[in-house]
């Protein structure tokens, strides 16, 4: 099982709740949580990350809206079996566009093209694992 470590950077422009939702989503996609697994309570995760409770609660709400989590009063957030989404053509185009922008940003920041390619190739193993 993958290690369940969540990392955020409070100096980044991306809001903390988006970083938390994004980090948790990555762990859920990787299979770090199985259906029925409990996630930390809003209070405990907020304390470890040093952010406001509402920030974590918002991230949990986003993931619950996407069908990753069930939020139950008194039990906190629980990972659930998620039905595979059926993306439309627009979603796929948006993903392609976002990926290109990310690669362009990496190159603009001076990351060598070979390193970028290496990273993209390493995703192959990740995708196979999900299948």
């Amino acid at each position, binding site marked *: 099982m993958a290690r369940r*470590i969540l*990392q*955020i950077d409070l100096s980044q422009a991306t809001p903390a709740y988006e970083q938390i939702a994004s980090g948790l989503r990555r762990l859920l996609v990787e299979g*770090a949580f199985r259906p029925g697994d409990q996630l930390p309570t809003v209070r405990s995760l907020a304390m470890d990350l040093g952010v406001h409770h509402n920030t974590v609660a918002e991230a949990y709400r986003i993931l619950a809206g996407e069908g990753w989590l069930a939020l139950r009063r008194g039990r906190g957030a629980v990972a659930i079996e998620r039905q595979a989404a059926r993306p439309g053509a627009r979603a796929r185009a948006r993903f392609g566009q976002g990926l290109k922008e990310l690669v362009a940003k990496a190159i603009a920041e001076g990351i060598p093209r070979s390193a970028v390619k290496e990273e993209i190739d390493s995703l192959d193993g990740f995708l196979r694992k999900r299948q």
Partner: protein
Amino acid sequence: MTMQGNFFFMLTILMISTVVLSGFLLYKLPGLTRPDIYFSVTIRPDFRQSESAREIQASYRRQIILHSLIGIALIILAIRLKLPGALVVGVLWQVGGFLAAFLSARKKVMPHAIEPSAVREADLAPAKMELPGGWLAQAAPFAILMVTGLWLRMHWNEIPDRFPVHWGFDGRPNGWGARTPAGVFAPILMGIATCGGLFLLNHAIAAFSRRIRVGGRAAAAEGRFRHIMLCIMLGSEFFVALLLSWVGLLALRATQEGPNPAVILLGTLGLAAVVTFVLIRTGQGGTRLADASHSAFESGGEDTPIGDRTPDRYWKAGMFYINPDDPAVMVESRFGVGYTLNLGRPLAWAILILLVVVPVAAALLMKFLQ
């Protein structure tokens, strides 16, 4: 040696030992904090090895030695002049000297302050709240006090109408209690209130403090450190429960003789020495534990130090943490070994009130009802 001479001798030993023990701990403190925190300021760990850092530490330590020696001299003077009320001046001198030395050192370190890393990590594995000894050990101090209360109730008729509760330096009683529910049960209630406050602190450390390091030896050492702190707190609860149960049971003694000061002296000194040794051996956040070298606590290749994941600007005078935006109720002390309250959280104030105000109110109640 007369009874009065005996009491003075015991008191001298107690006060001087207190100053020596605390002086030793204060002397060692700069080396016990996390490697990237120096005199309550976040710094690069390599700053500690610099010439200016060594000079700041040497100056601080010189002042601690000087003020501790003055404190001891004042205690001896108070004893010689037979002014027991002035004994506390020696301890207060040391405290004042420490504050001056600390604030001066902190001021010199501040120009070298560095913004700690904004990266935050959390281990999402279920965190178990483990109170040492489980709920049985946690309930034991309260059970001791309640059994004592029950015993006093069962032997109510054996309690004299007026009994000594406080003794002077000459060993003669100078405070009396009456056989009323408030007079007899006040020490028990005071014990329950104090243990309640300590239990809340223990619970707050276990449930409302941040795990600073995630993974690796540093995280394991931090876990052990937290457990040791919880054990010390539980030990203090037992100490308070036994002491106040004993005080409560004194009502049943027909004699006017005070408790043996040697027992109190040795007990208190022994406990203080053990706690001091453990704190020095552990270091803040477990940084000095055997399996955790100092390097394991350094930034791990990051450019900026991790510190204790609290911003410097919320530390007032380097000692009081007041951050309403931080959900942690307990945070690691910046200049000390252990935890301190985040005074920006309402729960912290509730704990503080229970810990200080309630026992003081119970003590005052006991005094007024005499």
